[in-house]
């Protein structure tokens, strides 16, 4: 006998049910699969033939003790870590976090920083939605559409790499500003990429919107009403696809959104097709906003002139004692954030991304909690899957756009 058969590994989860509601139902465990393949998640599913009758969602396979780790590092040192929450749109995480700390420190960022953050948030939203739509389409076998969208996404990622130095984990936000200003010619390239976007997204609409196979897989699958969505705390495109025009950028404007002209696209019945369409339309709105922001972008400094948080110029650090000490204190002790608590939420591509920070006056947070949309959405995902076919799990789960990094933290 092979000895390995004898030593059974412990089961990390305890399913909510061992058998289905009826005797002839089969209980199947689906996942977890590799993070790159849409979701490190495990579903325990009771099947009545091909029909899903009951679902128990298990997440946590990407849990890395994010909140515990945050309590052990300075406010500034957390930024690279914050990037890795929603790794498809790291900049939105950065800016929401920085604004939380700035709220506690009562810092008002410079106008150029405000507009740049808005522009980059919208640019990230495009990248995030492109990834989500592309991945869900690929899972349905639409390879051409996938390649078009991922090509666009890679234009965006490489363009952001020109600015920040990284494709995904940018570490670009700073408390009180940004890491660096736009490089030469960045806005020209942006204009070209947005032109490419128009061309290729037009082709996607042509390929999919009235495609019989696509509609059969997406229409009336994973339906959710507005009341249910709100009950489960859904936000973002998930909630808007049910027809509720709720968007923090409109309702509680932050950054420069109050000055922009844009619409909040909504769906009709909250099914997979609506979630696809809402995301496509949101990207159009983002492009519209970016074009306005390029025109509005003012000149000026990108970081506030505040010695409590902004690092002094490197040349000064090497030549004068005050700046050297300032630099040393900011790096070793971290910015001293006044005692208090703050909750700041931004409209991330997936929904309301909130940071709840508690400071006791030190250089690192006493507590930092992330209200991540993916985690909350996982709490209601079983409602989207129950009652549909086993094969519908793939497009429905794709349309939820669960990001393991921010769900499991």
């Amino acid at each position: 006998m092979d000895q390995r058969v004898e030593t059974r590994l412990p089961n990390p989860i305890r399913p909510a049910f061992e058998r289905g509601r009826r005797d002839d139902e089969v209980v199947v465990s689906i996942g977890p699969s590799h993070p790159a393949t849409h979701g490190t998640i495990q579903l325990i599913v009771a099947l009545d033939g091909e029909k899903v009758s009951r679902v128990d969602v298990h997440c946590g396979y990407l849990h890395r003790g994010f909140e515990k780790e945050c309590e052990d590092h300075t406010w500034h040192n957390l930024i690279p870590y914050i990037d890795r929450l929603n790794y498809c749109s790291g900049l939105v995480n950065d800016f929401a976090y920085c604004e939380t700390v700035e709220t506690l420190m009562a810092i008002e960022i410079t106008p150029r920083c405000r507009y740049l953050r808005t522009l980059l948030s919208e640019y990230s939203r495009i990248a995030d939605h492109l990834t989500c739509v592309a991945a869900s389409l690929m899972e349905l076998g639409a390879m051409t559409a996938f390649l078009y969208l991922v090509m666009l996404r890679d234009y965006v990622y490489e363009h952001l790499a020109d600015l920040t130095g990284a494709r995904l984990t940018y570490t670009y936000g700073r408390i009180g500003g940004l890491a660096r200003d736009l490089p030469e010619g960045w806005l020209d390239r942006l204009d070209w990429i947005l032109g490419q976007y128009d061309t290729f997204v037009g082709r996607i609409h042509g390929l999919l919107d009235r495609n019989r196979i696509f509609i059969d897989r997406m229409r009336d699958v994973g339906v959710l009403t507005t009341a249910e969505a709100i009950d489960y705390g859904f936000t973002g495109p998930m909630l808007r696809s049910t027809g509720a025009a709720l968007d923090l950028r409109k309702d509680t404007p932050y950054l420069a959104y109050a000055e922009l002209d844009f619409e909040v696209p909504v769906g009709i019945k909250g099914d997979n097709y609506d979630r696809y369409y809402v995301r496509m339309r949101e990207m159009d709105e983002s492009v519209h906003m970016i074009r306005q922001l390029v025109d509005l972008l003012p000149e000026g400094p990108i970081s506030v002139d505040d010695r409590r948080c902004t690092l002094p110029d490197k040349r000064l650090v090497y030549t004068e004692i005050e700046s050297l000490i300032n630099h040393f204190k900011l790096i070793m002790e971290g910015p001293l954030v006044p005692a208090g608590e703050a909750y700041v939420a931004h409209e991330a591509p997936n929904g309301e991304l909130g940071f709840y920070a508690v400071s006791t006056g030190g250089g690192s947070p006493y507590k930092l909690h992330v209200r991540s949309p993916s985690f909350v959405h996982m709490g209601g995902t079983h409602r989207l899957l129950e009652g549909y076919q086993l094969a519908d799990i793939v497009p429905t789960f794709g349309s939820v756009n669960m990001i393991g990094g921010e769900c499991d933290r």
Partner: protein
Amino acid sequence: MHPAILDLMLEKLAPSCSEASISPRMLVLSVPATAVLDTARRLKTDFACDLFLDVTAVDWLGHTPRFEVVYHFYSTEHKIRVRVKTRVPESEPVVDSLLPLYGAAAFMERECHEMYGIVFRGNADLRPLLLYEGFEGHPLRKDYPKTREQPLVSYRK
């Protein structure tokens, strides 16, 4: 400047709270642990706070009562947020579950339970969610050492 509804809410809710204040666009209420469910119900029915955003806890180690449970609500009608805070002692870290009011509470309370050991009375399903079955202790408590390891499968030699 804050929306007028916040003043009205403050006026109506302050008598039943131990502390109430307004920070920009947010109402902050401190209530006794026994009044959480009632406060949430009033927020939902009287002031349309229909979106349950979040629940978490803060471990004030060395203070009594030790834990502060923090809730965030959002009103999709008035576009305002409400934070409800309550203190619970280490010996009996129990609050009522908000499950009767919000479906979202099921998952979020599970997370808060495993991370801080807060017991949500009325939430029958407090299985580990981000952690695994058999995990000892509550990792976000301040007295849980960050370097402690509990591998489920022993490390490869």
